[in-house]
Each structure stands twice: as structure tokens, then as C-alpha cells.
């Protein structure tokens, strides 16, 4: 096993463990921290794929900016710990019927994932064989503003619409 492969499994383990901890924590602040750890694992994987720019941007945008906002909101609202004793067991979704249906759906999902993964050709080293189009900053910029121009602009409009919507909803109506 080469050192690259060893690092791949190490970073992958960090990313997966972080993701599992996000939903396994009762304290929302710890959940936010776990997702940051998971992002660092993903960033390491990007470095292994020879895309250092994407790796650093992952840290700057997700771990550096978006997660600070998450933490900000969690702290500002002072979200309480989720305690097992405080679960609302009378909620319709917690009854045995919906729970059983959910379990069936979960098993189906896992089955589909296994089926899809087993049919993917060349699971070992399939990505590394392709030319690294996202390696340099210039390449990322060029691809983003030519091949993926439409998707890029649509995403921008979507984000602006969401921002305007949030401002309109949050604004107090003094005059009316």
C-alpha cells in the first residue's frame, strides 16, 4: 500500500468520522465542530487529487466562513442540548407505523447505494487516470466561465434571490 493510499484512507476516515459525529452529538456546538473536522478530511482528499486550490477554497469558504455563521446562529439562539428524555413521543412521526416505513426506506437506500457502487467501473484509481482539469487556479476560472457559465450564473441568481427573500422576511414593517 503506497503512502498516497494510506493518506487517502486516513483522510477518508477523518471525513467519515466527522460526518457521523455530526448527527451523533446531542450538543449542537459539538455537531458544528464535527462537521468542520469532516471538511478538513475532505480538503486533504482534494490535496491528494492534486487540486490544492480546491482544497484551500474548501477550507476558506466552508470551514472558515459558512461554519462560523452556523456557530454564530447556534450560539445566538442558544440551542439547547437534545436530551432523550425530552423527546416528544406523541409526535405522529414517532409512532411505530411511520418508524417502520422509515426503516424500510433506509434499507432500500443502502441497497441502492451498494448496487450503484458495485456497478461503477474502475473504483480503484478511476479518478486519478483522468486529466486534472481543476489543478491550477487559471484552469478552474476558465472552465467555470466557459463550460459551466450557465450553471454558475444560475447559482448566483439563486443565492441572490434567497438573500433578498431573507431580508424581506426579516424586515420589520414600521409604516404599514
Amino acid at each position, binding site marked *: 500500500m503506497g503512502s498516497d493510499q494510506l493518506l487517502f484512507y486516513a483522510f477518508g476516515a477523518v471525513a467519515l468520522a466527522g460526518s457521523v459525529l455530526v448527527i451523533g452529538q446531542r450538543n449542537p*456546538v459539538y455537531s458544528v*465542530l464535527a462537521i*468542520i473536522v469532516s471538511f478538513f478530511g475532505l480538503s486533504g482528499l482534494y490535496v491528494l487529487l492534486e487540486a*490544492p*486550490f480546491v482544497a*484551500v*477554497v474548501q*477550507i*476558506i469558504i466552508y*470551514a*472558515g*466562513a459558512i461554519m*462560523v*455563521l452556523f*456557530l*454564530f446562529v447556534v*450560539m*445566538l439562539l442558544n440551542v439547547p442540548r437534545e436530551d432523550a428524555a425530552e423527546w416528544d413521543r406523541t409526535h405522529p412521526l414517532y409512532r411505530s407505523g411511520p418508524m417502520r416505513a422509515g426503516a424500510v426506506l433506509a434499507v432500500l437506500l443502502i441497497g441502492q447505494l451498494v448496487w450503484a457502487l458495485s456497478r461503477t467501473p474502475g473504483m480503484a484509481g478511476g479518478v486519478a487516470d483522468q486529466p486534472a482539469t481543476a489543478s491550477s*487556479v487559471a484552469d478552474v476560472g476558465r472552465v467555470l466561465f466557459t463550460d459551466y457559465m450557465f450553471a454558475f450564473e444560475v447559482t448566483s441568481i439563486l443565492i441572490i434571490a434567497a438573500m433578498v427573500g431573507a431580508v424581506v422576511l426579516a424586515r420589520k414593517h414600521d409604516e404599514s
Partner: protein
Amino acid sequence: MLDFVTDPAFLVYTGIILVVFFGLQTGAAVMVYAERKVAAFMQQRLGPYLVGPRGLLQPLADIVKLVFKEELRPKASDALLFTAAPVISVAAAYVAFAPVPFGPASTFFGLLDEPMPLIVADVNVAVLVIFAVASMGVYGIVLAGWASNSKYSLLGGLRSSAQMISYELAYGMSLAAVILLANTLSLREVVDAQDGYWFGVIPRWYIFLQPVAFFVFACAGVAETNRAPFDFPEAEQELVAGYHTEYSSMRFAMFFLAEYINMITVSAVAVNLFLGGWHGPFLPPEYGWIWFLAKLGVLLFIYLWLRWTLPRFRYDQLMAFGWKVLLPVATVNLLLTAAGVLYFGV
């Protein structure tokens, strides 16, 4: 198997790492002394003068005192995060300096066959790495505020996260303008692009091409390091001591250390991006690090000068300044720079 231990390149590289590590620590101690002396000078006082000649050993005495103080932890605090927060702060501060070059490649007086650059980690996206790691430092402050379980600490932590997010945008935009001019993300290459003179007199520093970007970078840099007049996370009059109210002893010292190391890092990045790094007249290129240290010292003095001259902003002024002045100015500057680079070529 242990042959590499006697390899001069390995020894020099280890030396560079140790010099940076202890240099940052010593730099922080010197800054504490300089801060008190400059403040005393501006307020017509003497400042520390009892410990050692002219009070020079005062930082050492401070460290001894901090080490021997009792570690206190509030009962209602979150034990894990309360301990982790100062470590996160100080680790992020140290790591952020790793991709900062502080001198030209040198053979160390013929010791090495190939010149080795004076830098700990020579990565080709250095500017972004520094930016990313420095933004991790905010977690130390925010978590300290939350884990202390005290209202002053929490307010300090919340203010800090809001402030850092607001000023990071302008900070990044001002960096991007210089990166466009230099056409590289490696700090070493940015510095090399500033070699030489215009008309034989004016050094080709980016501060002359990008004065607006330098102004935005300076403002955002002061805000990012939580220094006056942007020191809201620890505004004494309102928040006792902000996020580190509940901290004592070495845990408190770690926050202090992180703050001063961050100041050094921001100044070093400014020297590299805008002030030509280690390029300067009179000295042979081999001694470029002396120029680097001199420029770094000037910027650090400006930090102190600002702190003891300007009163603190009001919180709404801080936010309005960040979002309504710095960000638009930096964005327009970036657009104009991009247009200029397209039109005239790099």
C-alpha cells in the same frame, strides 16, 4: 537509515523551522515590551523600568508570573472546549506563518549546494493557505466565548465572529488585486515580481500601484487581529475582557500569544505583498532578511501607534465601515485592476 541527520539541507531546514517557531515567540515577547514602552512614551510615562536594564526583562518576568498562576475553570463551563479554545487559537497563529517567506533563497555561506528559500512550507497557493489558516483562529475565540458559559464571554465571542466574517471579505478582495498584478499565488513569486525600480528611483513595490488595496488590507488586517480601534471582542468598558474574561494563567497567555503572533503574520504578509519583501537598496541580496525585519518592525510600530492614538469605534460604525465602505472600495479596486491587467497586460 539515519543518514539524513547529517545532511546539511536537513539541518538547515530544521534550523529554519526552529528559528521561525522561537522567533515568533520572542517576537511576541518583544511586542509586549514595545507595546508598554510606546504607550508610556505617548502618555508621558516611563513604562516598565524596574526589571532588568530599562525594564528589558519585563516580558520574562511576565511569563514566569503567568506560568505560576493558578489555572481556574468555571464550574459551569464546558471542560473540553474551554481547554481546547486557547490551543486552537495559538496553533492557528503559528501555522499561519508557515507559508510566509522572510528572505531570499540562500546557500548559507556555501554550506548548501543548492540555495534554500527562507520559508517553512513553500506551497504554490501560499496566499490562500495563510488566509484559510488565519480564519481558523476565530474558532478559538468563539469557542472560548461559548465554553466559558458567561454572558460577557459569549458576547465577546459573538462579536468576534461577526467582525471576522465582515472584514474577511474586504481582506480577500484587497489580496486578490495584488495577486492579479503578480499573476501568482506564491508569496515568494509575488516578492520577486517587486524587484527593481521605476525610473531608477521608485522601488517597484505594489503599494505604489495599489495604494487603495493597501489601505483596505491594513484596515481589515487590524480588524482581523482584534486590535484597537477594532478591538470589540475584548472591549474592556463594555465586556470586562470579552472572550477571555474567565481565563487565567497560561490559557490566558496563549490567547495573548496568538494575538501578537497574528499581528506579526499580518504585518509579514503586508511586507511581502505590498512593500517588496526582502528587496531594498544598500544591502547585498544575501542579507535581504534584514530589510524584511526592518519593514516588519515599521508596520508593527504602526499597529501600536494606532492603538494608543485612536479611540474604539462604536459597534454599528464598525459594521457599517466594513460592509458599506471597505467592501465596495475593495470590489471596485479589484474590478479596475482586472480591467487594467486585461488592457495593459501584466
